[in-house]
């Protein structure tokens, strides 16, 4: 890797690393600070609201991902299975429960405090509901649920919106006040939302930069880093604004220098394939998985996984003038809360707008919310875009379901398929 690009790469990455480390530090020192912890989920994450009460936000999916990337999740999952959890259910849940049985140690090596509040944002995934019932079963702490109706007809209705707002007003906010001892201040929420919107503008700019042919970013493997702050404990913070400003600057520079995406080894050389990817990545072999793409010159130019914690590229922004309405709209619009025709529309638009060569589906064993229906989605996208689609199967944090040879084979055949399609077009 060139010295220059290393510097470019590292400033935003270092910033993020520091933000995450600080957050884990804050989480693991609540005994001293007295701060309260709300556990919640990435989709429907109400960080701006949580911050209004001076609470810290702990996301069990993120802990599971951290454990997956550190190759610790396999043992945790097996522990949970030995304790009666089915091999058939989402491995995030089992990694989380397994982590508790191993002393609930945070990535900084310190014990994670039990949550003071389980904020069950039931958004786009049924498993969430039972996951927090299981955590409540273990911790016994206060649980408050926010049901976000599924947009089955592809639209957000007034009834859905008012239902979410009513729950926020009458259940969620009072529970937060009770647990934190802090009175709700809507102006504080407005301030947080204003900061969110500013960061969201830059995130969208970054994601859209992949429309450049010779994309400066990888919107899946790189994308998971880019969404990090906004999907987790930093939406609504000054740090997130700074992070996205720096990130945007880095990407602008990459465009200027006509550089391809950053990879763990080097800047990517030739851009041979432009792909749209549907589905979450595998975390236990994240680097190997990514390598299979950049070794072949394959860049992901748009992905749906980077929309699970909020779909911003279709125009939504948190709105300080309509604070609760905007939180409701945010939750209702998260990717897995959208109906399948809507998801297909998004994918077809991505393939067209980002001049992609096709669609790749990474089907995750754990996740019915994403996976059920993906084969039909794939057929529809293929039909409507005229571009080839392919399918691989992995899992999130269970290493038993990542077969490198299998995935590699399928990817190679897919790249060949794209080549064939290209030569047919050229010949015509």
């Amino acid at each position, binding site marked *: 890797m060139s010295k220059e690009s290393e510097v470019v790469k590292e400033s935003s990455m270092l910033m993020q690393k520091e933000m995450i480390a600080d957050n884990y530090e804050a989480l693991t020192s609540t005994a001293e600070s007295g701060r309260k912890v709300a556990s919640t989920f990435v989709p429907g994450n109400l960080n701006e609201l949580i911050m209004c009460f001076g609470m810290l936000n702990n996301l069990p999916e993120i802990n599971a991902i951290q454990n997956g990337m550190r190759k610790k999740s396999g043992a945790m999952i097996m522990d949970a299975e030995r304790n009666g959890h089915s091999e058939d259910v989402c491995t995030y849940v089992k990694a989380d429960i397994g982590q508790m049985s191993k002393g609930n140690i945070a990535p900084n090596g310190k014990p994670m405090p039990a949550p003071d509040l389980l904020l069950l944002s039931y958004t786009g995934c049924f498993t969430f509901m039972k996951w927090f019932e299981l955590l409540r079963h273990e911790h*016994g702490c206060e*649980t408050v*649920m926010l*049901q976000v109706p*599924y947009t*089955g007809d592809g639209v957000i209705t007034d009834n859905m919106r008012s239902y979410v707002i009513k729950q926020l007003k009458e259940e969620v906010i009072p529970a937060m006040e009770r647990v934190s001892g802090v009175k709700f201040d809507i102006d504080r929420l407005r301030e947080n939302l204003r900061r969110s919107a500013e960061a969201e503008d830059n995130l969208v700019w970054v994601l859209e930069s992949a429309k450049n042919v010779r994309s400066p970013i990888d919107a899946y493997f790189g994308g998971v880093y880019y969404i990090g702050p906004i999907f987790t404990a930093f939406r609504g913070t000054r740090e997130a604004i700074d992070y996205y400003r720096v990130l945007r600057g880095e990407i602008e520079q990459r465009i200027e220098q006509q550089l391809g995406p950053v990879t763990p080894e080097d800047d990517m050389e030739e851009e041979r394939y432009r792909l749209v990817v549907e589905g979450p990545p595998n975390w236990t072999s994240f680097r190997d998985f990514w390598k299979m793409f950049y070794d072949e010159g394959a860049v992901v130019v748009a992905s749906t996984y980077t929309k699970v914690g909020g779909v911003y590229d279709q125009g939504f922004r948190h709105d300080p003038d309509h604070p609760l309405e905007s939180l409701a709209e945010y939750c209702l619009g998260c990717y897995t809360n959208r*109906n*399948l025709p809507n998801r297909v529309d998004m994918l077809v638009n991505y393939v067209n707008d980002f001049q992609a060569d096709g669609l790749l589906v990474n089907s995750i064993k754990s996740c019915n919310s994403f996976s059920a229906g993906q084969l*039909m989605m794939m057929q529809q996208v293929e039909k409507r875009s005229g571009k080839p689609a392919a399918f691989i199967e992995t899992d999130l944090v269970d290493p038993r379901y990542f077969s490198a040879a299998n995935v590699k084979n399928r990817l190679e055949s897919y790249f060949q398929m794209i080549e064939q399609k290209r030569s047919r077009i050229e010949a015509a």
Partner: protein
Amino acid sequence: MAVKDIIERCTELYRDLEFNAAKRWKAAGSDRKVMGYMPVYVPEEIIHAAGMMPLGIVGGGDQMEVIHGDAYYQSYICRIPRSTIELGVTGKLDFLDGILFPSICDVIRNLSGMWKMMRPDMYVQYFDVPQNFADGIGGEYYVKELEHLRDEFSALAGRPVGDDAINRSIALYNERRRLVREIYDFRSEAPWKAPTAEVHLLMRAGLVIPVEEHIRMMQGYLAAAREEDRPVRDCCRVVINGSFCEQPPLNLIKTIEMAGCYVVDDDYMLGNRWLLEDLATDGNPLEVLADAFLHHSADTAAKYCPRKEDVGRFLLQSVKDTKAEGVIFSAPSFCDPALLERPMLADRMSEHGIPHISFKYAENSGQMQPIREQAGTFADTLKLWS
């Protein structure tokens, strides 16, 4: 009619994946419509009040070879959606005028979108239900959803669906619910007189025939079964839990009893007795339906349990009411709701000293030997302990 004849008729309905009974009903009137629905619960009263016949769809069971369905689903997704897709792709559901996909899990939820893409010409509705059980929050939301459904059905039927009509349907469904409860009570009191396979077939029949006919059928069964003289066997008493969506094959249901377990309660066809009590027939029917859903409905893994101490309460009550000696957790493979809930229920049973076992099945499971052995050993253990 003798038990044998009634059960023969039910078996015929069970095996008929062409849904001829519903087709015949529809053909008898030019304005008749059939509205399909998937597990676990939809307010059938509103469908009925719109002059439509509700048709319950629980996949293709073990009689249907899934040829196309597997191309739509990965191997790690339960079987009911793939056999339901098979029913759709092979045209067996073409006679439907619409189909409802209730909120139960992400698989059925996503199937609603698949159906929209597969059949853009058909009325396809995802039906959400509240997981917040406060009248002013979840209740208010639900009443509005019911109003929406009623208005859509009015449009489909070409005439308004009024409160009086819904109230009349509620009265009819009250009658059906009373009979379903009576049959379950009868089986619990004298399980040798009402084998679970028969009760199951009887309940399944209710999915595919008009409610009026189902009421007569259940009345007939109760009268005939009470008269039957059947030998009492030395069996233990168990409750089945976790089978509220994809149904086990009939053979599996029989196997459990043959292995020495009288099933004294189950959640096989939970939709038939989702609402636990009689509903008022003189109020605002949508509010009455909402109130029943929020405060007097069955518990199942597809529902949120707001208080930790209430997890498993419904199952414990059922064990107590039916004097069961143990619980069999029997869930479809890859069933998120049932399998995620199971450890909590199992803990609750253990806390109360109620023995339990668990296994998984698919609607087309063929191998009964492991289940026979597991249920047999369980029955022996229960007998030994009691």
